């Protein structure tokens, strides 16, 4: 029973909630204005949901899931940047934090120092692949024309009026 309760963080809902609050915490550390906390959190939660869902239910590898999540986050932050009228950077930085392969980099260095070169190589390569996946995901969405996102703005105006 105790073990089950301990792993409550690993349920799907637990992961989404963690994604939201983790991103909000980072938004605070990076000095994002208060009114954008919620949106930043939503972007982070969406990205992480995609990442976890693809891995758990579609059997994608971590790198592939990272790629899709990176695309989703960049897309969501561009949409929110238009509707909230603020720089894209804000949401993208906060949203991408969970995907940055910090763990991979730390373990690589640890295995290197511990002379376990085989594991150092394999974790190191996965970390590099993840960085490339993040970059590619960002680039593809960054290539979408601005006009596409401006549509959102107009729609919102009509909805408001």
């Amino acid at each position, binding site marked *: 029973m105790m073990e089950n309760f301990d792993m409550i963080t690993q349920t799907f809902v637990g992961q989404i909630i*963690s994604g939201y609050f*983790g991103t*909000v915490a980072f938004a605070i550390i*990076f*000095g994002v204005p208060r009114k954008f906390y919620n949106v930043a959190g939503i972007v982070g939660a969406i990205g992480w949901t995609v990442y976890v869902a693809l891995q758990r239910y579609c059997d994608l590898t971590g790198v592939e899931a990272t790629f899709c999540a990176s695309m989703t986050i960049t897309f969501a932050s561009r949409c929110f940047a238009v509707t909230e009228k603020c*720089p894209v950077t804000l949401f993208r930085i906060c949203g991408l*934090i969970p995907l*940055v392969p910090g763990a991979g980099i730390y*373990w690589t260095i640890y295995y290197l120092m*511990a002379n376990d070169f085989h594991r150092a190589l394999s974790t190191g390569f996965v970390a590099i692949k993840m960085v490339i996946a993040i970059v590619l995901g960002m680039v593809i969405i960054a290539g979408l024309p601005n006009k596409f996102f401006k549509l959102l703005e107009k729609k919102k105006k009509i909805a408001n009026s």
Partner: protein
Amino acid sequence: MNQKPTEISDALDLATKAGYILLQNGAEISRVEETMNRIAKYFGVDAGNFFILSTGIFCTGNTRNLKKNDPNFKPEQFADVKYIPLKGSRLDKVVEINQLSREIEQGMYTLEEANEKLDIINQKPPKKAWIQTVSSGVGSFFFCSLFGGGLRDCMVSFVAGLILWIFVMLVSHQHISKLLLNLTGAVIATAVCVIALELGLGVSLGHMIIGSVIPLIPGIAFTIGIRDLVDEDYLAGATRLIDAVVVFFGIAMGVAITLLIYSRFMGGIIEL
């Protein structure tokens, strides 16, 4: 309708100042360039040239084109170089200057007012220390969960994140190199996790550590660096990415050193 051309040096000074604050607080090169151009153009400088790196702004301009038909007009020249250290970023300043530059474009400010507004933005105090510390702990808690830790691991990460940020706040006012700061920070966070594991509070050491050191992660430098590379600002992007890599390396060394010492006591490599 543009304003009457003011002194070129004032207009470009203003633009450079805005660029300085933007760059220091984690904006992409393309955004800095765009904002500076927007401000300079509105205040009547059409021949301003900016060359922007991650650590510096080079700005020149002249008024040759302004009054071509006036024979008595003496063209002015302006040149300025600013060095910008890579320091901690504050995204709220980026947002406000972005907003300000748009308002300037709509003619809501005179040059003096804009200058004052810039000073106000630049002197905005950071978030209170305890808020930052708590959010560091909360961030550690939830990131430990994101990377696969159970509830007990998350609790340990929370405490380690708090302690880590208290250390960062204490040390950040001293002149300490970035590498050393992150290295010692990671050593402290990892040590807290190791102690917690020995006391039987946590379950999985790897998850606890990754959660605890996450507040140090150079997220802004990393993302902006990639963004600059994609925008073909290769020099600036490389500078940012190297900055990020140095921080990553510092953290990784801190974690690895502590784990190595621990594994000497335990014998063999620790399974993570």
